[in-house]
Structures are given as structure tokens and as C-alpha cells.
């Protein structure tokens, strides 16, 4: 088809990849850091959280009002303030309502809001929500010009940049987020402790971290649990980063039927309970000796609380098993703290003291502004009341002036002139209802005026005295503390020593037999199987070792290499099995043939090993030289082109019989000198040119 196209008159701007990458990623990174993933240090909220809560406040969803459909809240947030996907807005709101995610929930939810087992919440057309009392405290005084505001995304409305933060939300509820280049993970804390900490700072700004830590003892998770490395908290709170070791709260109980059981009542923070229990089961199943101890794993949680039971076999060492589970499953896990938040418009990692300080200073600013606002209003009110009061006192004159004025404007002018009133006062008088001149009302005006004047004095006093300001803040914090009461959930252990439990702690050691077949493949079989096997097959003694499951073997190859191999690495099989090729069990195996197996630990170190090479070198070395920690090492020094043909433990009273390529046999009766591991040995007399040995044995 004939293609008619428009002439290309596009304006082409040239930019290099370097410029575009920089100019694309930098704004994106800045955006994600400041406006998405990281909370502000003052109110501990990310923008999406703040917007949801603000919408709920605008809608008047106070705790004493009815719930409202989530869809409504989500939709309005998206329309007015948050031009992104609905799913993330709803997920945010849900999380704010979960009592296992938030130390102090900011949203009260009605309906299915998810669970510790990772069940998803119901769709937003089903659930309902409203603000919690704590949220109200967080947003209190928002309408008193206490914070800065910005225009929303389409510049049609205003939204607050931060909340007045009646309580230190960042530390109390914590935060997690991954931005670009920066991330944050702040654990939640006990509300009363943090509030007391802030109060202490306000009392004495020179507070040290150590003193603060007397009050804020450590993180406090809504899910409880135990922090077992309390001694690391000092450093963590100093720098703002560190590792916490969280463990589930578990006790050993005896069930009614007499069997021991591990009962878990608290799980580590942000752990999916169902998944964790499933993984514990998986782990147990992958290890014979562990699953042998466990008879059942049950999740018995219900509306009365969280409870999981690991039922054990009768004679199991429950304490030890619990220690094992702590060590090797997520029953105990590491929580990496990174206290980063936006401060002064930049992401910053901060220690505990700095977080408290910044909150306290912010709170002072907010409180000051609130007082200034209240003062402004009070002064305005006082002004009006004064006007009214004056009017009441001179009511006849006032009426006369008004009556004799042509227009309201003239009346106003005259009133202002006559009594020295301000415009506002004059207007108030003109707007006054006649009822005001009754005695009762007039008295009320005086009373109110006195009260307002007192308030003005009080407010001015607060503004003039930092100490008074602090007192006001402390009082307000104390009020909130009452609302947020509740005991500490997470226990902190100091100087706890990890129980020593090896991975193989429960492994039982059994007898077993390992042998090498004619293809140099290794087999591991039970003693019984082996007994049957040698009835029909002959296996040279050098290639068999009766050993135990926890032993380490030495494998000698013809190139003069010796390898260390754990018995448990060799899969157990039956006699008909093909066995395992050496390369599979030992990654660095480079020989072609296995000549000998020895039990490294069970062989008497005084024993000697005999080596015979193709070209007639014979060496005898002490076994203890081979008991070294390396996985691959030399057993003998070989001449170029030479190789071993026999390796074995020297049996006393026997001689060496060597067979060459032509099947001629040579017997060596002389005692062989004992030399070191990395030596060549000695020549076995004279060999004919080209004579090579192929095998040997002790007879």
C-alpha cells in the first residue's frame, strides 16, 4: 500500500545518555525520598499516610462519629491529594488500623483488616473506618496556623506539609520504607516512655543519651516478643543504626497428656505467623533428627490471643530444642534498625537523642504558633467585647448617634470618633442585637471580657516565658499519655548469652560402612548390607572403612592428592546402587582413581601409611601427618610422570608384593624408612628400563 507520510519537521534536541540518566533519576530519587518512602521526623508520617488522615479529618470521622466506607476515604484521598494508585492508598489506611503493625493505631477499622497470618484485608468496598483518638491528638490544632501548607497536585486545594504532632509519632509507631539510595527502618517504642523522654528533654535540654535511655529503655513492638541483645542498644541509639535480635516469646509447658511442648505466645515483629510455622515444619522435615523430636505443630490462636504449640515427643529435651529453633529458624530473627527520616528537608540518619530533640523543638514551634493564633483571636475577641462593653455603658449616647446618622457608614464614623473605637469595634456595635443591652447580657459581656483579658495575659505570659511554654507542652503530653496508656509489650534482655547449639546437636551418631568400588565410586551402606556384600564381592581392605556418621575420611588418589571428606556427605544407599563419583562429593577432586580410604579421626596417629609408585618409589609416613585441617593436600611428592599404585596402612609383619606391567612380581622385605608426608620415598632397588608397577599389596 502506498504510504503517504507527513514530512518530518520535528525539532530534534540532542541530549546525551549521561545527561538523560542523571536528569531522570535525580528528580525521581528526590521525589521518592522526600515525597514517598521516608517519613518526616516531626510527625513520623509519609505523605500518603498524612493525606489519608487529613481526608478523614476533613470528613469529620472522629472516634465518636459513625464509621465511613473505606472506598469513600480512598477515593477522596486519590481525587484531592494523592494522584496515584488506589491500592497503595487503601493498603496504607489498612496498615494504620492494624494493632499488630502499629504500636498506637491511628485508624479504627470496621471489618476484616488483615491478620498476622498474612490474610489480605477485605476489599475497600466492604470495610469502614474512622480516626482513632490518637490520630486526633496528632492533628490537633491543625486549624490554628501551626504548620505550613502547600498546594495539592492540581493546585486547587491546600494540604498540610506536616501535622502539629501532639505526640512523638515517629518513635512511637516507627516506620519502614525503601527509597532510592536511602531506606529507613525505625522500630516502634512504648508511648509513655517516649513521651516521658520528650518531657525530660524539655525540662533539661542538656540531657545525655544515657540519661534518656533510663527513660526510653528500648523498642517496644505491638506484637511483644523479646529483644535479646539489649546491650547493643546503646550504640544503636547513638548512631541510629544497628542490629536487634528479636525472638518469639516461647515457654516450655507440659501438656495435659504429659508430653512436653513449646508454646509460643508472641512472635517477632512483622513476621507472618502462618508462614513461620510452616517453615519451621519444613526445616524440621528436612532433618531427620529434628522431625523425630516433634509430633505436631499447631496454631491455636483465636480471638483470645495468639498461641502456637509445637508438641514434642516424650523424652525430648524441650529446652534444647527451643534453643535450636531460635538459632536455626526465624523464631529468632535479626531486625536491622536504620533510623532515617526527613529532617530540614533532607534524608538523615539520626540517633535517639536527635530524634527526641527535633520532635521537642518542633513541638515548641507548633505550640508557640498555636498560642500566637489563640492570642490573636483572643485579642480580636477582647477588642470586640471592649467595644460592646463601652456601648453598654454609654448605650443612650450610642443609640442617639446611630439614630441621628444618615447611613451606617456615617454612624460608624461617628461612633469611632466619639468613643475612640476601632473600626471593628464600631462594626460590632452596629451589628449588636438589642438583647445585649439587657442587664444579664451586659454582665455577661463584662465577664467574658474579663475572662478573655485573663486569657490574653496568660497567653502572653506563655509566649514570654520558654519555661511556661514547656510547661504547657508537658501538660498536653501528659494528657495524651493517659490516652495512650498500656504496659510495655516487648521484653529486653541484657547480657543474654546465646545458647550453644550446634547444627548437628540432635544428630545421632550411627555406625556405617564406606567403600570404593572398581570404578572409584564411593558407597555408604549399613553394616548389615556390607556383610552381605562381601559374601559375593571382594573388596580390598584399603578401600573399606568401618566408621561412624559423624566422621571425616581421607581419600587418597593416584596423583598423590589426599582429600578430606565428611561421611555424612556421602549419600546412603543399598548394595545395588551405583554409588557416587568422587568429583561429585569433592569439588576439587582431580585424580582418576581412589586408592585408599582412611578414617581421619578414628585411626591411631601412631599408625603408618605405605605408598608405592609406578616407578618404584616406596614411602612410609606417620598417619598423624595426614590429620590436617585442609580439604585437599599432597600425600607424597611424585617425580614427573610418576603416579601412585598402592596406598595402605602398614600392617605389621607383612611384606610388600609389587606387580609390574608384565605381571612379574617383586617382593620387598626391607623395612621402609619413615619419612615425612611431603617426601619422595626411596627406590625399591633397581628396576629394568621401562619397568612399571601396576599394583601392590601387603602379604
Amino acid at each position, binding site marked *: *500500500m502506498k*504510504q*503517504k*507520510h*507527513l*514530512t*518530518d*519537521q*520535528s*525539532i*530534534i*534536541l*540532542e*541530549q*546525551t*545518555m*549521561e545527561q*538523560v*540518566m*542523571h*536528569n*531522570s*533519576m*535525580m*528528580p*525521581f*530519587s*528526590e*521525589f*521518592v*525520598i*522526600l515525597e514517598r518512602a521516608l517519613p518526616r521526623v516531626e510527625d513520623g508520617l509519609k505523605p500518603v499516610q498524612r493525606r489519608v488522615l487529613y481526608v478523614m479529618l476533613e470528613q469529620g470521622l472522629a472516634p465518636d462519629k459513625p464509621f465511613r466506607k473505606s472506598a469513600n476515604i480512598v477515593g477522596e484521598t486519590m481525587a484531592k491529594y494523592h*494522584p496515584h494508585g488506589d491500592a497503595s492508598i487503601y493498603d496504607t489506611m489498612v496498615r494504620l488500623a492494624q494493632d499488630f503493625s502499629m504500636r498506637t493505631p491511628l485508624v479504627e477499622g470496621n471489618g476484616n483488616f488483615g491478620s498476622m497470618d498474612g490474610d489480605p484485608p477485605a476489599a475497600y468496598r466492604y470495610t469502614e473506618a474512622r480516626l482513632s483518638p490518637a490520630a486526633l491528638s496528632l492533628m490537633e490544632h491543625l486549624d490554628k496556623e501551626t504548620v505550613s501548607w*502547600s*498546594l495539592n*497536585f*492540581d*493546585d486547587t486545594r491546600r494540604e498540610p506539609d506536616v501535622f502539629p504532632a501532639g505526640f512523638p509519632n515517629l518513635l512511637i509507631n516507627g516506620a519502614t520504607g525503601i527509597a*532510592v*539510595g*536511602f*531506606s529507613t527502618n525505625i522500630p516502634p517504642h512504648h508511648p509513655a516512655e517516649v513521651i516521658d523522654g520528650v518531657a525530660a528533654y524539655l525540662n533539661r535540654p542538656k540531657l545525655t543519651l544515657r540519661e534518656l535511655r533510663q527513660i526510653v529503655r528500648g523498642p517496644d513492638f505491638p506484637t511483644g516478643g523479646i529483644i535479646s541483645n539489649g546491650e547493643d542498644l546503646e550504640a544503636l541509639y547513638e548512631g541510629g543504626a544497628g542490629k536487634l535480635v528479636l525472638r518469639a516469646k516461647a515457654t516450655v509447658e507440659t501438656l495435659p497428656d504429659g508430653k512436653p511442648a513449646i508454646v509460643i505466645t508472641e512472635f517477632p515483629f512483622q513476621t507472618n505467623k502462618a508462614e513461620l510455622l510452616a517453615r519451621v515444619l519444613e526445616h524440621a522435615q528436612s532433618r531427620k533428627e529434628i522431625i523425630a523430636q516433634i509430633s505436631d505443630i499447631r496454631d491455636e490462636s483465636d480471638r483470645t490471643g495468639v498461641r502456637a504449640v509445637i508438641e514434642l515427643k516424650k523424652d525430648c529435651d524441650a529446652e534444647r530444642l527451643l534453643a535450636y529453633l531460635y538459632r536455626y529458624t526465624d523464631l529468632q530473627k535479626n531486625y536491622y534498625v536504620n533510623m532515617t527520616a526527613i529532617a530540614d*528537608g*533532607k*534524608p538523615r540518619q539520626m540517633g535517639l537523642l536527635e530524634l527526641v530533640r527535633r520532635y521537642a523543638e518542633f513541638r515548641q514551634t507548633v505550640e508557640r504558633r498555636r498560642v500566637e493564633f489563640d492570642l490573636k483571636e483572643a485579642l480580636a475577641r477582647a477588642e470586640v467585647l471592649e467595644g460592646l462593653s463601652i456601648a453598654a455603658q454609654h448605650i443612650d449616647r450610642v443609640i442617639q448617634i446611630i439614630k441621628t446618622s444618615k447611613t451606617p457608614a456615617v454612624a460608624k464614623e461617628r461612633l469611632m470618633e466619639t468613643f475612640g473605637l476601632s473600626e471593628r469595634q464600631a462594626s460590632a456595635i452596629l451589628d449588636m442585637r438589642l438583647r445585649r443591652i439587657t442587664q444579664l447580657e451586659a454582665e455577661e459581656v463584662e465577664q467574658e471580657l474579663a475572662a478573655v483579658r485573663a486569657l490574653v495575659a496568660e497567653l502572653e505570659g506563655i509566649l514570654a516565658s520558654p519555661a511556661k511554654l514547656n510547661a504547657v507542652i508537658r501538660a498536653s503530653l501528659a494528657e495524651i499519655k493517659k490516652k495512650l496508656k498500656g504496659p510495655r509489650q516487648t521484653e529486653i534482655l541484657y547480657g543474654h548469652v546465646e545458647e550453644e547449639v550446634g547444627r548437628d546437636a540432635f544428630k545421632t551418631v550411627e555406625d556405617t560402612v564406606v567403600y570404593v568400588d572398581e570404578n572409584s565410586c564411593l558407597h555408604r551402606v549399613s553394616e548389615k548390607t556390607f556383610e552381605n556384600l562381601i559374601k559375593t564381592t571382594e573388596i580390598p581392605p584399603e578401600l573399606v572403612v568401618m566408621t561412624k556418621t559423624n566422621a571425616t575420611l581421607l581419600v587418597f588418589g593416584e596423583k598423590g592428592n589426599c582429600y578430606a571428606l565428611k561421611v555424612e556427605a556421602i549419600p546412603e544407599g543399598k548394595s545395588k546402587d551405583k554409588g557416587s563419583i568422587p568429583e561429585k562429593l569433592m569439588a576439587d577432586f*582431580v585424580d582418576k582413581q581412589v586408592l585408599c580410604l582412611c578414617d581421619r579421626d578414628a585411626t591411631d596417629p601412631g599408625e603408618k601409611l605405605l605408598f608405592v609408585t609406578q616407578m618404584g618409589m616406596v614411602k612410609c609416613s606417620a598417619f598423624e601427618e595426614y590429620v590436617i585441617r585442609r580439604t585437599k593436600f599432597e600425600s607424597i611428592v611424585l617425580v614427573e610422570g610418576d603416579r601412585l599404585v598402592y596406598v595402605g596402612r602398614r600392617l605389621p609383619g607383612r611384606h610388600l608384593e609389587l606387580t609390574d606391567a608384565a605381571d612379574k612380581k617383586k617382593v620387598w622385605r626391607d623395612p621402609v624408612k619413615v619419612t615425612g608426608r611431603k617426601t619422595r620415598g626411596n627406590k625399591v632397588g633397581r628396576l629394568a628400563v621401562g619397568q612399571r608397577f601396576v599394583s601392590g599389596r601387603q602379604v
Partner: protein
Amino acid sequence: MKQADNKATNRKRAAEGKGNSKRSAPATAGKSAGEQYNAGALTVLEGLRPVRVRPGMYIGDTDTKGLHHLLWEIIDNAIDEAANGYADQISVTLYEDGSVSVADNGRGMPVDLHPDKKVSGVELIFTQLHAGGKFDNKSYLISGGLHGVGASVVNALSEWLVAEVYRGGKRYRAEFHSYFDEAGEMVPGAVKKKLRQAGSTDKKGSFIHFKPDPRVFPHARLDNHTITQKLRELAYLNAGLTIVCEDRRQPEGQRQVVFSFAGGLADFVRYHNRGKAAAYPDPIVIKGESEGVSVEVALQHTDAYSESILSYVNNIRTGEGGTHETGLKMALTKVLNTAAREGGYLKEKEENYAGEDFREGMSAVLLVKMRDPQFEGQTKTKLGNVSVKTAVEAVVSEQFSRYVQNIRHEAVLKVILDKARQARQVREAAQRANALARQKSSLDVISLVGKFAPCIGRDPAVNELFIVEGDSAGGSAKQGRDRNFQAILPLKGKPLNSEKRRLDQILSNEEIRSIITALGTGIGKDFSPGALRYGKVIILADADQDGAHIRALLLTFFYRYMRPLLAAGHIYIGRPPLYRLETRGAKKEVRYAYSDQESERYSAEMGRGVTITRYKGLGEMNPGLLWETTLHPAHRTLIRVSIEDAAEAEQLVSVLMGDNAEVRKEYIVEHANFNRTDAFSKKMEKVT
């Protein structure tokens, strides 16, 4: 006389960089100029004037690149002193008045009189084209500059130039300037003060201070970043040389940077790899000489997935590679395959590894020094001398074998060979996956039915593919396009970050597969840029920050897996409008602005009562609007993406998109402007 007038005008025009080829014929009234083309019509530009008339011939252009070229020329001369062992410190200073100076502590330029020309060596160097010490291979064995032309070119294009030489305990000084004489003719690079002794000194070397003529370079500025990058690179390439860069235009405390790398290329490789995790602690260093070619290599493997070879010949970057790179690659492959066989890493029956298997994650810097290099290729950055390949191969083979056989390096060898094994596995797996994908999509474009909207025409030169963010925008684009030559491929969600994944993982991502299928080029081994179905591949994302992220992700994919498309200029970025400005009332006017500045300008022009709406996403626009402002070839603006500094691009992609969050954090902290407020909202605040 007419002739003289023309001469004057022409010379004046010449000084301003305008040229003329023919002048009207002399004294033959009545006959037309063209008919009178005889010897008198030829212009002979003498002295340095050719440089002013055609600066492009000498320095490329008169924009930023050309301006910096002046500086590179002088620095190259200083580097040559160092490379030949006479100097060990170079200082570059940028002054507030736009001038720059380069000082070295070498032998100092010749101050004695030239036997024939009877002027001092210094004056000769700066006023005569084609004068220099680099022609006879006696004074300079190896050099990288314009072979003697550089210094005089710089002088010709500078407003003034001061040269000082410190030699034999004495200090000499000469001054030059470019000016208009009484006849209005431009006299470039003339001697203002002849070279004379100006005191004594215990320094040695040369000091050249010049100010590029703003009449030649009206717009360009000396860029601190560009210069420091180049100096850093030169310091790496010349181990033991100290380069000091002082920029007096910067605030106190941020003025001076010193580069000195005793480790030379090894340090360079370490720097290059700083965004990645090294696979072994120390770079492998190879130094040697063969047949008059000196070879120096430093290489180190990292956990990244692509290879990166930076090659240089006499300090000149050879971005297009060449015979030296070929020699290096062949030697590495040979030595490593041998080592693999000997060490049992390759079983007998297995085939040898391919060269690329060994080079996965490898960063290497190769520096070759030789006489008379021949440069080929599109941008003349490809080394062509055939003999160099054998020389490099010989040196690298010998030294690298020795390195590899050393037991102490066994661990490193194991790491490299393990990586190669993995790389081969991945390569083979990817081939299989590719074959599978091709089998599946042998029905080709049909597999994309539903999402992809192809265009009717089949002419790649004309066709365009728009890769659009989201189905919402995709719909508008599909409805708004010209279906004859514009195809639309909507992408759901954010594309995969190709920097953190291997090829087989990338291929299993549906969005990436649809891009590959739509483009028609295949990928990896089967990548053939010639099969590209579209002359322009245009990324169309929203104007918001997530759109920016999507742009970056797509560019990363193209950079890593389809770089030839980027290099050939096929990748573009669409520019949707940011604002709509409308005036109601008497004079109804609607305009679209593409940037904040444009918006402000239009808003001022349109006067009061202008309503400004801001577009947050492509889905906000009607299809017709999208067509008019963004898709229509007569009205739209496109940004073509090119790669200028490959090393820098490589760095950026790996730092911004790679695995190492620490390095990314450092970059962000250094470059981010967290205090930047939204200009638009600020303005609105004032209004409302």
C-alpha cells in the same frame, strides 16, 4: 579601489570566523565574477589566519567541545613531557575571567633562536603552524597531540596568551595577542612582547596562560566537571604524574583537586569498578613491550554482568576499539582456556569457552604507546595498525600466562574460571530461551495482538514506535496516532531494571519480550540492529517523576542490550506538553508549553486572565491533543539520546541502577538538590 575594499571586507569577515571562497574578479568591469576565475581570485591565508577562518578544521567546532579542545592541546603537550619522562607535575588553573593556565615541570620550551627562522623556539611554537618537536621522533618518542599544530592553534584562537619558560635557572616570558589592526583586519596570535629574560628562578618547565577569544567562542564555557574528569583520566593513564586542578571560579574550599595515582591503570580499574563488588581484591596488571609497542593492561572482574574495556593509544581514548583491543581479547581467551584445561576446570570432552564468557563482569583499561598510530572508524577513534594486534597479543599472552600459573593467584584464576562456567551456562540457557521465544513468536507480531498496535507501512526509515507508559496513555496514543507510520506499544507498570538482572531473567519478563519482538532486532547473540523495524524508537512517559524513572529504566535496557541502537541515534524521548494556557473572553487563545520557562513566557505574553492547567499524565490528554502536541511530526519536539562519553555513561548506569546502594547514596547526596521547590506551585501560591 574596489579590489582593496573587497580585500578589507573579506579579511574582516575572516577574523570573525566567516569565510568566503571567491571574491569578485578584479578590475574587469562588465564581465561577471564567476567567468573571471583566475589566479587573482584565490586567497592565500597566511600565518595563523587559516585557523581563524576555519577553526572547525583544527578543533572540530566552536562550541563547548571545541573550546575544551584548546585546553586539551596545551595539556597534551605537558603530558607528552611527562610521558617521555621529563615532567612529573602538571597544574591546570581556571581563572575567573575565563582564562586558563597549564604549567608543567618538564624541560621547558626551547628559548634559543631557531637556526633558520631566527626567532626563539617559543615564538615559533606559538606563531607558526606546523612547527614543533614531534616530527622527528628525537625529542618526543611518543606523542598524542596534534603533532605540532596544537600550540599555535590555541594562540590563534585566544584573545591573549602568555608563555613563560623556566630553564637553566632563568625565567623567560613572551606575550601574544589577537587584535584588529587599523585596517580592521584580524591579526590572530601576534607577538605582543618578544621572548626575553624576565628574572631568575629555580623552577623548571613551562607555564602557558591563555584566554580563549570570546569572539570565536561566544557561548561556550570551560566546564569544571569535564576538565576534572579528563584530568583524572590522564592521571590514571600516566602513573606517578601529579595533576593539580584549581578552579578559582568556585567558592572557597572547593577549588582545588589533586590527582595522582601511583597505581596508574590498576587504580583506574579500581575507580571504574567502585560501583560494583570486585570478584577478587587486586586488579591484574600486565606491562610489557613488543616490536616498539608498549602495552599496559589492568583488569579486574566484578559481579556485574557486562564487560567494559577502556582502551587508549598514546593517551587518546579509542572508543571504537581497534586492533589493540582485538589482540588483548584473543590473548586472554587463549591463556584462560589453556589454564582451564590444565587445571581441570574444563573436562576433555567439553568445548573451549568463548571469549565473552571470560569477559563477563570484566573491567579493563588498556594503554598502548606507539609511533605513528593510524586511526579509523566513523569518529576516528579506532586503532587500525595491524602490527599492534600481534604485539599486544604477544605481551599479554606471555605475562598473563605467567600470572595465571603462579600458585599464589590460584584463587583468582578459580574465580575467573567459575565465572566463565556460569557465564557459559547462562549464555546457553539464554540461547535456548531465545530459541523458544522465537519459536513461540515465529508467528511474530501476532503474539503481541491486543496490546501492540502496529503501523501499516513497512518502511523502517519512516516508521516510528512509541513505547508508552501505561494502558491509559496507550489508549490515547493509539487513538491519536497516524496509523500509517506510527506504532504504539503500551507498557504495563514499570519495566524491569536490566542492570540488576542477567539476560535469561530479562527474557522471561513479558514486557521486555514484547519490546524485543516489536523492534524486530532479536537480542543477545542474535541481535541484529539492521533488522530494526523503526527509524525512531520513542519513549513516551508521563511528565511526572515516575515517568522519569520509567525513562531511566528503558534507557538502561537499551544501553545494556541494544547499545548500537542508541549509538546510531534511533532512541528518542517524546516531549508531551506540561501546561495548557488558555485565555477566555475577548481574545480566546490556547497554547501549550513544554517547560516551566516556556509556561512563564507564554503566561506573560498572554496577559492577565490566563488559566494554567498542568498535565500530570498522558492519560489526561485527549487523543487529538496528544497527536497535535506530541505525535505530529510537524509540531512535535523529540529528544534524541546519544552516548558521548562512554565511560561516563557506563559509570552512571552502574551507579544509578546497579546493585550497590551505598555508591548510589553517595551520588545522590552529592548531586541532589533537596531544597528545590516546585516553581509552579510557588507561583500559584502568590496568585491564589
